[in-house]
């Protein structure tokens, strides 16, 4: 199993945190930028879905690789901003992308840990050897399920779609190693309380309320309880990466890239330092794109590691962590990847 290609698509519209009208002045905005490292993010126009961005990213990927849609045996769609409650968005995308009718397609509704989980799931399916070519999408339109008047999330989250092409190769000598984790007691650290079966949509859940000074939300909007997420993020990801390192006897000196979910700079730097990874081996794209949940790790690879990953194999560690609360770490080798430019839609 190897990564053959990668692509990414972001919306054209850029929202700059420094000039966001939700702050009383630029001083306050600058404080948020300094502590999170996030300067701006891309935002879809209302009506554009994660699947729209995905179509652009996948078409670009197929074109760069010289693959036809009918060459694809497996298609996994990591996304929580689905087109419809039913069916799965992957089914809709099978038709839009003209994938074969016997292609193995499915949604994986993961958040920030989704690309790593997706690599494990698609990798395992393909290791059987009957599915030779797979595409793993990680996409999200975070700006659409969060309230624009919620100052605790508006500056942090952005929209993006990424596509990772995987190819089965029986001579491939590099295994992919994984470490998983979950703590469902933290289900309400990042959640949308209304809109599911537990708390269906009611007229009341659509009414915007000031939940704390300057923070407005509806019951159906995503809530991010910053303090709890922060406490989780500085504890579990470092533990998970250390477990990965000890379980699979990884010599950290030989690691070329530490690919972290782009949560915020403060959290990610704590994780990086906890495993003593030098800054030059830890790329960031959050300053430009914000937190794009499951798309964070592949977007970092596309936008920041294109040259490096087009060369010979690099030894990589990736770690995704967030909503669930769920997290996952992986060790893999990646090189000679066909990576396109980040495209805008």
């Amino acid at each position: 199993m190897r990564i053959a290609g990668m692509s990414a698509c972001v919306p054209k519209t850029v929202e700059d945190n420094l000039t966001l009208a939700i702050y009383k002045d630029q001083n306050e905005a600058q404080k948020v930028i300094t502590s999170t490292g996030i300067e701006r993010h891309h935002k879809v126009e209302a009506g554009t879905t994660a699947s729209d961005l995905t179509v652009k990213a996948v078409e670009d990927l197929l074109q760069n690789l010289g693959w036809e849609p009918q060459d694809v045996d497996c298609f996994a769609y990591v996304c929580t901003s689905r087109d419809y409650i039913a069916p799965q968005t992957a089914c809709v995308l099978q038709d839009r992308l003209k994938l074969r009718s016997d292609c193995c397609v499915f949604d994986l509704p993961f958040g920030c840990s989704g690309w790593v989980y997706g690599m494990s799931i698609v990798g395992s399916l393909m290791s059987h050897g009957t599915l030779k070519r797979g595409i793993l999408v990680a996409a999200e339109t975070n700006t659409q399920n969060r309230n624009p008047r919620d100052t605790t999330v508006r500056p942090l989250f952005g929209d993006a779609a990424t596509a990772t092409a995987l190819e089965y190769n029986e001579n491939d000598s590099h295994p992919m190693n994984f470490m998983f984790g979950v703590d469902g007691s933290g289900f309400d650290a990042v959640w949308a309380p209304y809109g599911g079966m537990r708390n269906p949509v009611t007229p009341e859940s659509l009414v915007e309320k000031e939940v704390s000074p300057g923070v407005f939300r509806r019951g159906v909007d995503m809530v991010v309880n910053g303090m709890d997420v922060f406490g989780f993020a500085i504890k579990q990801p470092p533990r998970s990466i250390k477990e990965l390192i000890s379980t699979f006897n990884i010599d950290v000196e030989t690691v070329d890239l530490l690919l972290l979910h782009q949560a915020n700079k403060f959290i990610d730097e704590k994780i990086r330092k906890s495993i003593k990874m030098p800054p030059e081996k830890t790329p960031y794209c959050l300053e430009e794109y914000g937190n794009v949940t499951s798309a964070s790790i592949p977007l970092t690879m596309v936008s920041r590691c294109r040259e490096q990953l087009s060369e010979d194999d690099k030894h990589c560690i990736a770690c995704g962590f967030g909503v669930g609360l769920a997290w996952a770490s992986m060790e893999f080798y990646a090189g000679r990847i066909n990576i396109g430019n980040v495209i805008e839609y």
Partner: protein
Amino acid sequence: MNIQDFIENFAAQFDDTDEALFTAETEFKSLDEWSSLTALSIIAMVDDEYDVIIKGSDILNSNTIQDLFEIVEKQQH
């Protein structure tokens, strides 16, 4: 752990507030400079200095620095 060190570590998370304002009895959430970002710095400081991860509710339920000190002390044992 001792309360004087804790107060000093706590005060170090603020940029503009006079150090003299920090005592065990300081109601920290009433300080002008207090914000959700300061709360994150406090959580990180407690992790670095005391190897304890406090929750959002620990901060919400504390009024004074002494209150938070006691929560951290309890979790250390």
